[in-house]
């Protein structure tokens, strides 16, 4: 990694030039706009393959939610009220709030859903989704456009997007 000030070749990842002390932080990052780095920043979540959500109402019994998820091979249901997103109920919630505490399966999902979930907007870059999944451990992100749910993005689809870009760049 060459210092832009004095030309000394520094160890990759150095923050300061060993010869002149110039700031080198950020120099080893890939160039902006290069390959899939650019795609992750410049593409839009709305252009990715979104999954139509399983929608339930707040009063839907937990047992029905689980049956729907199992049948559709989905890891979550979205809880809607007057077509507004009220919450999300995921396979992790099945473990932590239903199976482990032996919850009555007739319980309305509103009691065990996560209210006000993290969401994406169609104009967000995919890297936002990468961060939410990486940092918060989320696996399902509802995509909301002007208050209306247009689908959700799963970790599986995000990985597929990344892989396609890796292949495209090879």
């Amino acid at each position, binding site marked *: 990694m060459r210092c832009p000030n004095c030309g000394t070749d520094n160890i990759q990842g150095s923050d300061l030039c060993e010869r002149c002390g110039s700031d080198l932080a950020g120099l080893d990052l890939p160039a902006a706009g290069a390959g899939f780095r650019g795609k992750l920043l410049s593409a839009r979540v709305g252009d990715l393959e979104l999954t139509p959500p399983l929608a339930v109402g707040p009063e839907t019994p937990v047992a029905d939610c689980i*049956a729907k998820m199992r049948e559709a091979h989905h890891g979550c249901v979205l809880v809607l009220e007057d077509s507004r997103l009220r919450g999300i109920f995921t396979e992790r919630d099945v473990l932590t709030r239903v199976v482990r505490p032996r919850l009555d399966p007739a319980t309305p999902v509103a009691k065990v859903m*996560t209210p006000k979930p993290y969401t994406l907007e169609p104009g967000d870059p995919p890297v936002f989704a990468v961060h939410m999944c990486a940092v918060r451990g989320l696996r399902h992100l509802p995509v909301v456009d002007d208050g209306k749910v247009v689908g959700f993005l799963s970790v*599986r689809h*995000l990985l597929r997007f990344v892989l396609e*870009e*890796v292949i495209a760049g090879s």
Partner: protein
Amino acid sequence: MSRSVEEILRTVRIDDLGRQHDHRVSPDTPLGEVYRVLDEKRHGAVMVCEDDRVVGIFTQRDILNRTAGKEVDVATPIGELMTREPVTLPADRRVAEALEVMVEGGYRHVPLIDAKGREAGLISSRVILRFIADHYPETVLNLPPRLHQQLARPEGG
């Protein structure tokens, strides 16, 4: 020279990423104990191992499909409920290869093995996404504040 992220994914080995090593249970571990491990350690899956060999995997998706709402006794050994002989990857392969196996198989967790076929940790989709996220540090700083989305409980998704 700087490298693009896809180049990095094709060069970096899986075992250079943060492999996860506390995901082991044995075939006679009761289902209830597996529930506890998955819940308290916030794991998405456990590897079922016998004599350092990976003989099965059991994931949160398996709870949804096989045990939730089905009156399965929590004393049932996980060996009876696991997916047998899961796909594994040598830990010295490249991250891009793990990504490919995950996407093609629809897996979020792949057990790793060493040159002698012994269990060598687990790679998860979350670890790969974190690795990718680490290459976009400036984006974290620019994430828009969405304070109304603070979770009341540290869960979900």
